[in-house]
């Protein structure tokens, strides 16, 4: 039957102290203080029967069956030991003490008087074990300690490691760069990061890991601690870990999820990748006769666009409509959004008539196509052209009749003033 002592301090002494202790005593004390404390035990008085290796009477201090010290006698000898000024510090918050006296005492021995106190443990300085120490900051207080994290980190539910919130990263551009948090510095512990790349259907995402790749691994077990897992449609890549870059991964999907898990230990540099998207390729379009396609490249893929136009003097004819340019796009299924229309020579059509004027074509067939020309003239002698211009109009590239001086504007035929058809009698200055 042990005597339980749970106070923060206390006294333990031999029976009948300060009188001599009785023979055949066998007494146990169990001292217990709260977690975060240790027990400091020291003796104010010690007077027990001496014996070789303390075979007769003794005081024994134990922690969980491990003997910390055995004391007996009055003074230190080779084979027996008194506590003297020695202080015993328990490794934990419990300590067991036993006192034993044998059947006889040759002299009168007064026994012992010991005191104990609870002593605070500075966990911040003592916990060097990575598995127990605070990840970022440690704060000690009497009876315990707590951990905190640098700005931007969150204390994990283990109250020790610092994680980051990185579960909602969405990438929608056709190219991008993704890396572990804090790359190239060691990535956070206890974190689960999710990176999603979501592109339009028709694209296939290619991942290219950088050479610098360091994810905690195990020599025998496949990625038990930290790992990368990549989901691309129905395909899965990984788990990936270790110090060798996975290099290029052609996912074949427009939707990729990268899951990165880190456990609560380890200092590893992480990873970084760049991604690109390639689309289905479309056949190289042939330019129309008298036209061109821009840009000219070897391969056209999904979302690529080309501009179709005609040479000067020609115009695109698309479904009866005349248009200057047509932009077509490579579609996800590898076809172009429109077929390449033909180029037709520009036709300015019949020129507008001038009131009191005439049109005289320069070509036999009264051509109105690009480059053909005509002249305006007025009903002389009663009308004259205003403004007085080089009256030739040429069919221009924009389907407009153009004059060197007036552009697309028209002259007009204005009445001639002051010139009667029948001459008036002349006058002479008097």
């Amino acid at each position, binding site marked *: 039957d042990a005597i339980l002592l749970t106070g923060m301090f206390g006294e333990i002494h031999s029976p009948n102290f300060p009188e001599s202790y009785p023979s055949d005593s066998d007494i146990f004390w169990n001292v217990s203080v709260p977690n975060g404390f240790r027990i400091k035990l020291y003796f104010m008085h010690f007077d027990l029967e001496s014996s070789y290796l303390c075979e007769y009477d003794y005081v024994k201090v134990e922690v969980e069956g491990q003997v910390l010290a055995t004391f007996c006698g009055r003074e230190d000898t080779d084979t027996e030991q008194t506590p003297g000024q020695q202080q015993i510090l328990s490794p934990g918050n419990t300590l067991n003490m036993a006192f034993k006296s044998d059947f006889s005492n040759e002299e009168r021995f007064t026994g012992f008087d010991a005191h104990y106190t609870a002593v605070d443990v500075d966990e911040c300085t003592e916990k060097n074990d990575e598995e127990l120490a605070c990840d970022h900051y440690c704060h000690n207080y009497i009876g315990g300690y707590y951990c905190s994290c640098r700005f931007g980190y969150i204390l994990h539910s283990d109250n020790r490691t610092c994680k980051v919130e990185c579960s909602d990263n969405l990438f929608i551009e056709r190219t991008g760069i993704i890396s572990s948090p804090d790359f190239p510095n060691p990535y956070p512990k206890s974190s689960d990061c999710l990176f999603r790349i979501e592109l339009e259907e028709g694209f296939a995402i290619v991942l290219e890991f950088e050479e610098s790749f360091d994810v905690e691994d195990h020599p025998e077990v496949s990625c038990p601690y930290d790992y990368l897992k990549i989901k691309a449609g129905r395909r899965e890549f990984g788990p990936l870990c270790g110090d060798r870059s996975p290099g290029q991964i052609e996912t074949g999907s427009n939707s990729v999820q990268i899951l990165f898990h880190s456990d609560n230990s380890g200092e590893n540099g992480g990873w970084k990748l760049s991604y690109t998207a390639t689309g289905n390729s479309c056949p190289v379009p042939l330019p129309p006769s008298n036209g061109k396609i821009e840009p000219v490249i070897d391969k056209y893929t999904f979302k690529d666009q080309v501009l179709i136009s005609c040479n000067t003097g020609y115009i695109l004819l698309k479904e009866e409509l005349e248009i200057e340019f047509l932009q077509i796009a490579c579609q996800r299924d590898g076809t172009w959004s429109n077929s390449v229309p033909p180029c037709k020579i520009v036709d300015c059509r019949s020129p507008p008539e001038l009131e*009191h004027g005439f049109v005289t074509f320069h070509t036999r067939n009264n051509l109105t196509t690009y480059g053909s020309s005509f002249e305006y003239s007025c*009903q002389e002698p009663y009308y004259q052209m205003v403004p007085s211009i080089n009256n030739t109009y040429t069919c221009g590239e924009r389907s407009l009749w153009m004059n060197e001086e007036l552009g697309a504007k028209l002259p007009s035929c204005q*009445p001639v003033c*002051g*010139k*009667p058809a029948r001459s*008036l009698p002349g*006058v002479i*200055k008097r």
Partner: protein
Amino acid sequence: IIGGRNAEPGFFPWQALVMVEDMSRVPEDKWFGSGALLSDSWVLTAAHVLRSQRRDNTVIPVSKEHVTIYLGLHDVTNKMDATNRTVERIILHEDFDPKSYNNDIALLKLKDKVTMGPYVMPVCLPHFHHELAGPQTNTLGLVAGWGLSSPNITMEDAVSSSSRTVSDILQYVKLPVVLHAECKSSYSSRSQNYNVTDNMFCAGYYEGGKDTCLGDSGGAFIIQDPSTQRWVAQGLVSWGGPEECGSKQVYGVYTKVSNYLDWLGDKVEEFS
């Protein structure tokens, strides 16, 4: 036209007969004057031709419905062969003074455009650089009209009568431009009521015999531009003294068109 000659068809293709029949008056007022075609829509004339005949000093144009314009007309008895037009707008000069005839100028806009031909053509306006100069003294000009060819009858007679004193055939006469000071003093010596302003010039002969007369009002006094050989309307027949037309030392007074080029330009632009 006093002392004039018969014009040949096509001599004055800009010459317009301006007929006014004021039905609102009892008995009906009828008179006529001349005008000068400026373009296919505009006719230049004198303000007093289109002023409603009142005794007061108000200047109100006659109703446009009462005006008919004849173009390409040679013989007034044969209007069938002429081009007639009704009027869309009458614009009298805002500062026309019916007492002094200062600013005696007006524009008519035709309802329908006319087509040019050998008998219908516009007259030119003076160039802007001639604006300040106006017609030079002694320069000969021509003026035509269907007005009185004899000074001894009234306008009423001219409208209603077939008297030979009114010429059926367009008449014209050559008149020299008179020194402005001479004309001004000639009129002022007779009465202080006459004021030959800088907006007018005079033409005629000291000895008389050739002149414009009633019914010629609004017709163009034309001078040939020596550089372009084009006929330019430098004046509009406006007024004369109470003496008989063509009397000795009585000059005809004409509105100096070059003073109104800005006004003409503004009005044509405003109402085109």
